[in-house]
């Protein structure tokens, strides 16, 4: 199917209106965001439930959630629901209902970023490792920019590099102008575009397939394992998927959103609703991937997905769906840029090199750092031209396995010590590349799973050896 022939001026107009709207938000909130660092990075802790739902969902759901899950639907069938989508939601219940409210209500106000939280849980040298780690994981934003550029290139014929530069520049413009205010408000609009476009996809899909029973019959005829709960996944594969589902616990985005909430109770309601809506959105993408598998089995899954979308949606709605994908990517990338620039300027430069730096200087430096990060990310896209899956496997797997134990155990474990957090984080940073690149994952055990195990052993071992009878600070359980 020639996708370019189905792309019309009306579709272009919708995408351009979307881009213009995002920049407009940056201009509107520019003055408000510049009043303090708390206003710039945490939107003055004024986010209400609707904004929190929108910004948490839009930031978390990116191009992988749209095209990646559709590809999984095509290649793994319903098993992706059983081993990833649903476990993802269920495993995050403690994050939404215990950790989020605790972070907002009990952690002191000086804790603004995730490295600040690490300092609160442990000490400054552990924070230093955490801050460097947070910045390196922004490499994933490169993969996201590449993904959206590739789609715009595939569908509209636009030059790939130009598409990436335009998306990156728009994100840099509104994020550097208005910080989390712009990110949060644009996220609500982006979230609305994403869910509305997904809902518009459902009826035409049903009409095309004549009901789910017929769709499943078509798939069963091709490969019956696609309709089993675990598919062809091995127990280690399943464990790796479930481990990836815990990524939200180790995400700087989550902690920033909790801190930005007006109260812990509002953060709890918003995150539960975000997951409720999120799994419903994900399920549509999996279904679309299954339709692509049934009707376009010979095509590459991502191309099959776009062929189905363009075939079933009318003129104009195709533009809305492409805008939804751009929204999914831009709403994630803007948060990554904001976090990376704040960690660089506040957590590394101000806290370790120039403690006398004023808040206004921090904000000015942030505004300067964001476009620089964007330029670096556009350059970094060349490393991810094989696809976004590789980026998520390495960057996401590394980040989650390194941060998970020190952060979550640090909040809950009553015998937590500074040494335990430091050695667990440092150990994970050293172990992941050793297991993945030098030892080549012995026994087929994925590097993220092995790193989790090592991190837990080091953390609990060191904590118990160094525990002197009194905890460094109260745990969540207290």
């Amino acid at each position, binding site marked *: 199917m020639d996708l370019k022939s189905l792309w019309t001026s009306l579709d272009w107009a919708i995408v351009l209106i979307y881009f213009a709207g995002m920049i407009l938000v940056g201009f509107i909130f520019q003055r408000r965001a510049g009043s303090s660092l708390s206003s710039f990075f945490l939107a003055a802790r004024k986010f209400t439930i609707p904004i929190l739902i929108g910004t948490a969902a839009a930031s978390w759901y990116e191009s992988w959630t749209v095209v990646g899950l559709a590809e999984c639907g095509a290649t793994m069938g319903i098993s992706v629901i059983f081993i990833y989508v649903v476990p993802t939601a269920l495993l995050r219940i403690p994050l939404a209902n215990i950790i989020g409210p605790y972070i907002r209500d009990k952690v002191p106000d000086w804790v603004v970023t995730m490295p600040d939280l690490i300092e609160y849980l442990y000490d400054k040298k552990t924070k230093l490792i955490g801050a460097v780690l947070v910045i390196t994981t922004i490499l994933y934003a490169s993969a996201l920019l590449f993904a959206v550029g590739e789609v715009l290139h595939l569908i509209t014929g636009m030059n790939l590099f130009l598409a990436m530069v335009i998306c990156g520049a728009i994100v840099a413009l509104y994020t550097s102008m208005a910080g989390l205010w712009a990110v949060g408000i644009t996220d609500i609009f982006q979230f609305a575009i994403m869910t509305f476009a997904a809902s518009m996809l459902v009826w035409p899909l049903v009409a095309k397939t004549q009901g789910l029973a017929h769709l499943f019959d078509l798939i069963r005829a091709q490969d019956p394992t696609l309709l089993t709960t675990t598919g062809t996944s091995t127990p280690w594969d399943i464990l790796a998927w479930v481990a990836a589902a815990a990524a939200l616990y180790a995400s700087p985005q989550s902690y920033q959103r909790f801190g930005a909430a007006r*109260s812990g109770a509002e953060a709890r309601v918003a995150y539960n609703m975000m997951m409720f809506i999120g799994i419903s959105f994900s*399920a549509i993408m999996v279904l679309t991937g299954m339709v692509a598998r049934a009707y376009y089995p010979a095509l590459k899954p991502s191309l099959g997905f776009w062929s189905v979308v363009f075939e079933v949606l009318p003129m104009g709605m195709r533009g809305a769906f492409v805008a939804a994908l751009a929204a999914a990517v831009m709403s994630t990338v803007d948060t990554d840029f904001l976090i990376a620039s704040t960690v660089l300027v506040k957590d590394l430069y101000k806290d370790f090199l120039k403690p006398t730096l004023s808040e206004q200087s921090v904000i000015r430096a942030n505004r300067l750092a964001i476009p620089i990060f964007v330029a670096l990310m556009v350059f970094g896209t060349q490393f991810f031209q094989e696809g976004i899956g590789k980026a998520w496997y390495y960057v996401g797997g590394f980040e989650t396995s390194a941060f998970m134990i020190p952060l979550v155990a640090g909040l809950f474990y009553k015998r937590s010590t500074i040494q335990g957090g430091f050695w667990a984080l440092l150990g994970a940073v050293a172990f992941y590349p050793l297991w993945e690149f030098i030892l080549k994952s012995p026994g087929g055990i994925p590097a993220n799973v092995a790193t989790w195990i090592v991190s837990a052993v080091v953390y609990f071992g060191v904590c118990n050896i160094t525990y002197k009878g009194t905890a460094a600070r109260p745990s969540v359980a207290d």
Partner: protein
Amino acid sequence: MTGNLRLWGKVTMWLMIFQALFLLWAFYNHADVLVYELFLINLVAGPACLIAYLVEVSRGVFRED
């Protein structure tokens, strides 16, 4: 207000758990009701958040002190 929010915290948690279990059931049994449900949730969720935010703006919730 806080009491109401606590209750809503519990309600939304169970709503999410129910939805997760429903997805497992519906995908395993290829139930057509899944399609209606997904359509409704996605149609309403995003625009409802946007409208709720705009209502808050009009009520001055985000007004600068």
